[in-house]
């Protein structure tokens, strides 16, 4: 039995809507198109792409809510179609937004309800509910009807619901959508702890800093197909996006300015000269390599006095946007 979630040539094409009269509409393009990837246990794996890339469709196929058109997906060797019921015991899905909980039940009742549906052992269910309420910071609101919860509180309850069956694999589809920054930070810590404890996590998020922080490995999809994969650092490096080095001088230094222009010409870097808010001369270099060292050396050798240096490496967000633009 292969461990982890293994996806092989997974394809999903939604059938065109049926019409009572008139011609049947042509089948739309696949939402997921021959996707192959692996989500190991004990790590957070990212699934990135722009809107409509097929992230949610992929996650819903893994959650057994959608049936693949072709290809396969297994969870610890169990097929998501053939062994759906057993797969559902091992996984759970947390989606962004505050849906998936009942407004006319209290937070505690919601967790009890889903605990019953997951057949969580009675001996542990009440303890588990207490732990989860504590984890998401809803212990004090446990007896309040969910319809009186704020949006963030509902989302936190959704997160607790997604953990009620102690899933071996957690599918997170924009889990921090609409959450306050401190709560989102706490959730990231929870996800990191879960992964450290052996849970396999698949994460989609528009907050790419979150992905960079949590994910050991990232898959980038576009129009349902895999376009890149690797660690966040590898993906960023692979796009050859420019590092930006911003250097501020204490006083005008014409020799230093000439030397910087020569360096930029030699390296093939983009260069700008302007002044900062205090009127001090400032030079900005953009190049795929980090030229901060060469730039500072050049300025100092040319007699310039440096007030400040700031290096901005390309982010994962820059890399994803660059891939999408291709």
């Amino acid at each position, binding site marked *: 039995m292969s461990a982890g979630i293994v996806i092989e040539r997974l394809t999903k094409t939604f059938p065109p809507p049926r019409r009572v009269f008139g011609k049947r509409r042509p089948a739309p393009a696949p939402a997921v198109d021959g996707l192959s990837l692996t989500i190991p246990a004990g790590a957070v794996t990212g699934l990135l792409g722009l809107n409509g890339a097929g992230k949610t469709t992929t996650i819903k196929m893994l959650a057994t809510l959608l049936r693949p058109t072709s290809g396969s997906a297994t969870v610890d060797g169990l097929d998501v179609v053939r062994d759906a019921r057993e797969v559902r015991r091992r996984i759970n899905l947390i989606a962004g937004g505050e849906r998936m909980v009942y407004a006319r039940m209290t937070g505690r009742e919601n967790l009890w309800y889903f605990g019953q549906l997951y057949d969580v052992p009675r001996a542990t269910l009440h303890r588990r509910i207490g732990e989860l309420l504590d984890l998401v910071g809803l212990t004090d609101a446990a007896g309040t009807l969910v319809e009186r919860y704020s949006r963030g509180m509902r989302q936190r309850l959704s997160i607790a*619901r997604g953990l009620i069956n102690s899933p071996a694999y957690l599918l997170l589809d924009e889990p921090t959508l609409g959450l306050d920054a401190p709560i989102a930070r706490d959730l990231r810590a929870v996800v990191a702890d879960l992964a450290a404890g052996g849970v396999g996590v698949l994460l989609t998020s528009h907050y790419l800093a979150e992905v960079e922080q949590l994910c050991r490995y990232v898959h980038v999809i576009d129009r349902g197909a895999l376009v890149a994969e690797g660690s966040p650092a590898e993906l960023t490096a692979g796009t050859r996006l420019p590092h930006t080095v911003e250097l501020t001088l204490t006083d005008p230094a014409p020799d230093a300015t000439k030397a910087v222009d020569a360096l930029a010409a030699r390296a093939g870097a983009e260069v700008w000269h302007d002044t900062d808010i205090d009127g001090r001369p400032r030079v900005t270099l953009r190049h795929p390599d980090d030229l901060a060292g060469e730039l500072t050396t050049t300025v100092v050798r040319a007699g310039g006095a440096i007030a400040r240096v700031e290096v901005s490496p390309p982010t994962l967000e820059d890399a994803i946007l660059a891939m999408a633009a291709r």
Partner: protein
Amino acid sequence: MSAAWRVVLAEALKQHRRIFGTKLVVFSMLVWPVLTLATTYYTILPVTAAPGAAERWPLVGEPQRLAAFLAAGALAYTFFFSLVQSAWHFSFERVSGTLEALFLTPASRLALVVANGSGALVQNAWLFGAFAVAAAAATGTLHVAHPGMYPVAVAALLVPAVAWGAFLNSLLMFSRDSAFLYTLLDDPLWFVAGVRLPLFALPLWVKAIGLAFPLTTSLAVLRGALLDGEGVRELGGDLALLGGLSAALFALTAVTLRVGERHAQKTGSLQLF
């Protein structure tokens, strides 16, 4: 405790929370069927005074027995219609996003819909049921052949009602355009099942349609067992028909759920509303 029983308990809590938003609801559970009963009684009363009515329907000459006949009809209708309402409400789970959360769980789908129907039934019908039995006992209109016929009558009402509710749930759960069923199953259910009139007064084609609804036969057993002193032997045919109808409804529910879930997985319609 079996997983299915735990689903039943969970659904019972959910139904309780959904239905009992305020204490007035408890009051309305009694008022609604009683008003319905009163409306029916006073609608029928002028008809009973028509020349020759007593020859065709002897009950019209005995107001207390006529009221008991109609009360039995209202009781059974309350049971069955509460399940139509419950199924309609269940279809709103798609809108609220909780239907996906339900289908994410490994819980048996059949257990879910049966539990939902049973939960609604207990929540909606217990008060009027208790009232109707107490009223019938107090007015002396109960005429039971054997005490064993009480559980037979209860079972003849409960089992087909739950099967009916489960079937409706399975239909409405997967359909976005299910409101028409609500309309279709309200007044026609009254009419074809003989809730307000004896079946012999209805045209043959209506009787034929009525046989397809378990309420018709449930009502025949209820009235026969509790008001006409009939035993299992006299009601054997109706009980067999009810058993067959209930089994068919449960089987149809299981098939509908399987086909419906497969279709929803194919089209992604669980998230559409």
